[in-house]
């Protein structure tokens, strides 16, 4: 009976919170963040004006940087396209393979025992060390860069998919057994959605690695791309453009992360 009462109590709508319009609360929530940005911007202005005064300053002010950014936009856009042509396939293949193999290995005790010792050795190798070798072995810069991005994103996705599949709620598994689901349906309709929270956090880490590896790989041999842009203007000591490139790359990374986050929220609508 106590349980029944508890259930009833849960179903009573929560009227305890006083009514408050939504938007001022939002503004308040971001107020401190906006303050931090303002302080950083002011500090930037002050540093560029009073600390670094030489003509070709290592610390260009915001005005210089933003005008350089504006001028470089077409070139940056071409760089973005070139970079995404490496990032998207690399990260995409890593995600698909990582999820498929991770789920498969995660649901089988035997496969886990077989492959995880190897994974523990291979996964922690910093993927940057593969770059020179990949460039030497693979035919074009693009394929070697895609490979390196793939290696960087694969392990986090694979490991998180495997652990998500492994930690599957026992009720979901029992349910599938009662329903007599075949192996493929079980993985596609039960294990995969149940492991999605894990998979998305692995994808977040993987995407971060992808950007790091992409830009590092571009330092080695690209003729276009975001990392290449920064390196190129640094070589010419054109620091306003270089800083503009850094800011722009940060923005692209931020947008990619936001897109992933948005997808995650859409996909995990059932999680509460």
């Amino acid at each position, binding site marked *: 009976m106590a349980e029944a009462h508890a259930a009833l109590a849960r179903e009573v709508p929560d009227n305890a919170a006083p009514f408050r319009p939504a938007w001022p609360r939002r503004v308040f929530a971001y107020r401190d963040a906006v303050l931090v940005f303002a302080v950083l911007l002011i500090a930037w202005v002050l540093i560029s004006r009073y600390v670094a005064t030489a003509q070709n300053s290592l610390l260009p002010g915001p005005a210089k940087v933003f005008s350089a950014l504006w001028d470089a936009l077409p070139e940056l856009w071409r760089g973005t396209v070139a970079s995404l042509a490496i990032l998207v396939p690399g990260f995409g293949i890593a995600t698909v393979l990582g999820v498929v193999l991770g789920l498969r290995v995660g649901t089988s005790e035997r496969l886990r025992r077989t492959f995880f010792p190897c994974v523990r050795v291979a996964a922690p190798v910093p993927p940057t060390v593969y770059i020179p070798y990949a460039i030497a072995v693979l035919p074009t810069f693009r394929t070697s860069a895609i490979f390196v991005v793939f290696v960087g994103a694969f392990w986090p996705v694979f490991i998180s998919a495997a652990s998500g599949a492994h930690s599957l709620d026992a009720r979901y598994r029992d349910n599938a*057994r009662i329903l007599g689901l075949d192996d493929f349906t079980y993985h596609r*309709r039960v294990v995969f959605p149940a492991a999605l929270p894990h998979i998305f956090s692995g994808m977040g880490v993987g995407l971060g690695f992808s950007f790091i590896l992409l830009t590092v790989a571009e330092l080695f041999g690209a003729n276009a791309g975001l990392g290449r842009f920064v390196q190129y203007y640094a070589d010419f000591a054109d620091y306003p453009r270089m800083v503009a490139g850094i800011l722009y790359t940060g923005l692209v990374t931020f947008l990619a992360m936001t897109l992933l986050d948005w997808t995650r929220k859409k996909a995990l609508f059932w999680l509460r």
Partner: protein
Amino acid sequence: MTPGLTLEHVGVRLGAAHVLEGVSLDVPVGQFVSLLGASGSGKSTLLRLVVGLAQATSGRLAWAGEAITATSIERGLVFQDYALYPWMTLTENVALAVARRDPRLPPSERRAQAHAHLSLVGLADAAEKHPFEVSGGMQQRAAIARALALGSSLLALDEPFGALDPVNRARLQDLLLEIWDGASPRKTILFVTHDVDEALYLGARVVILGGAPGRVISDFEVPFPRPRDRGALLGHRDFHRLRDEIATRIDRDMLDRLKAA
């Protein structure tokens, strides 16, 4: 006569723990059995054995003359907590069972049948909702619809209405009786509960598990004719006598186990 469920000296050990020992039980096809017992008496374990989710370490279990070694769509289970898949709509949840019953059905027909099963339990309007969008009672109705869609001839239910408020609980009890009574041939039902009233209202027979390790400590037919009426039962002297006997039996068993521990 076709044999129903047979358990012979069934025992379960989980490591050092004796969960069940020497459980013997014969349930004829179509019987509604209420399974009672204090928590920890092995009721849920017994159900898991019967549906094939767990294996006995000794003894034999058989359904319709065949040894139970794994799960089968002939033996369905409705869980204590609703265990629908939260990322699927109610229709999609039920359609999984429909597809298992008849794998050659085209998807549209699958959905139509799933919808029909949901209508049967009064969920026609909620069919396209997700489990978290409906109440606990509705989730449990959907779980019953899914078990029906599977078409099992043996239905095991593990405290299915334990988390519901009294009104919904009564409604679902009647729904279950209606389904059981309306089907021909009748399904065999194993209904685990810790609510004595519920066990007496639903079951044709009450089996009580107790002791450590768990075994059958009481097994009797419920003498009340069907259709049963809640109000009339409450006015019945035998009902109160039985209820007290059972409650005392379970309480004493629990005290014994506390002393032993």
